[in-house]
């Protein structure tokens, strides 16, 4: 059973980690977390992104936003690169989310088949 006391032990290591991670990130990964997103399963997607970034070293921050305006395509994940260019992924699930991190963030390759553009074709 975990206790809050255990957090103290994690603190020093976390401090070092945070210092290492300081500085600009190349990517910003944004999850739509409005009513439409939540109902469609955005929360497990966010959780998968957090879990994966805790495990591996990813050059990105994970943030949340409200409704993106395409409710039927939720869960939506947007990836902004450092130039501000945006890739929008739709109907994301936890497995796809991890794939997006591993391919797009790690290797810089867009997972074309999960994008809105591919879906709307």
């Amino acid at each position: 059973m975990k206790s809050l006391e255990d957090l103290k032990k994690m603190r020093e290591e976390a401090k070092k980690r945070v210092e290492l991670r300081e500085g600009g990130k190349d990517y910003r990964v944004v999850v739509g977390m409005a009513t439409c997103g939540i109902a469609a399963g955005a929360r497990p997607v966010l959780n998968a992104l957090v879990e994966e970034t805790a495990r591996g070293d990813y050059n990105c921050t994970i943030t949340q936003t409200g409704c993106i305006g395409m409710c039927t395509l939720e869960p939506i994940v947007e990836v902004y690169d450092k130039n501000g260019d945006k890739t929008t992924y739709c109907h994301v699930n936890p497995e796809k989310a991890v794939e997006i991190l591993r391919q797009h963030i790690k290797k810089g390759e867009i997972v074309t088949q999960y994008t809105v553009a591919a879906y709307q074709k």
Partner: protein
Amino acid sequence: MQDLAMMMLDIANNSLRAGAKTIIIRLLEDEKKDRLGLSIEDDGCGMDEETLQRASDPFYTSRTTRKIGLGLAFFKGLSEQCEGNFTLRSKPGKGTLAAIEIRRSHWDAPPLGNIAESLAALIQANPAVNLDFQYQKNEHDFVFQTEAVKQILEDVPLNDPEILLWLKEYIDQQMQSIEKEGETYEITGRS
């Protein structure tokens, strides 16, 4: 919305958007009285009387990206579905309280769902906000306050992925143990 945890996250997201500094969430299960309650209270910007009247109308929203707003409508709908009641109180500049209380054993009463994951998502969304959560089942309760966690962590941010995962697992374990203790009570309570 499949479960209560998702609704909790959705309603509390309203609080975040209202610029709340503190969000108080109470989840209460009382098997003797057969009640299940969930309340979300914040110190955000609040609503004026007119907005308040329309807030749970599915065709009203304060946002501009779309014309419907289902969060509070779902919340209210659930209470109507499960022999419950719905409370929505708000004062501009003071904050808002949204709460439901339903019959726990009702056919349409949703499962609690993954409360820990919803709380983690809230912390992730804005770690600066103080989250004050209490889960009570019968006579047992579990309290989780991000303020206490922040004191322990000093300047380590709560949304650090590893810390966040730890917090989620911690909340999950505590919730499960309360649920179990609640069951023990149920058995002895019958004899």
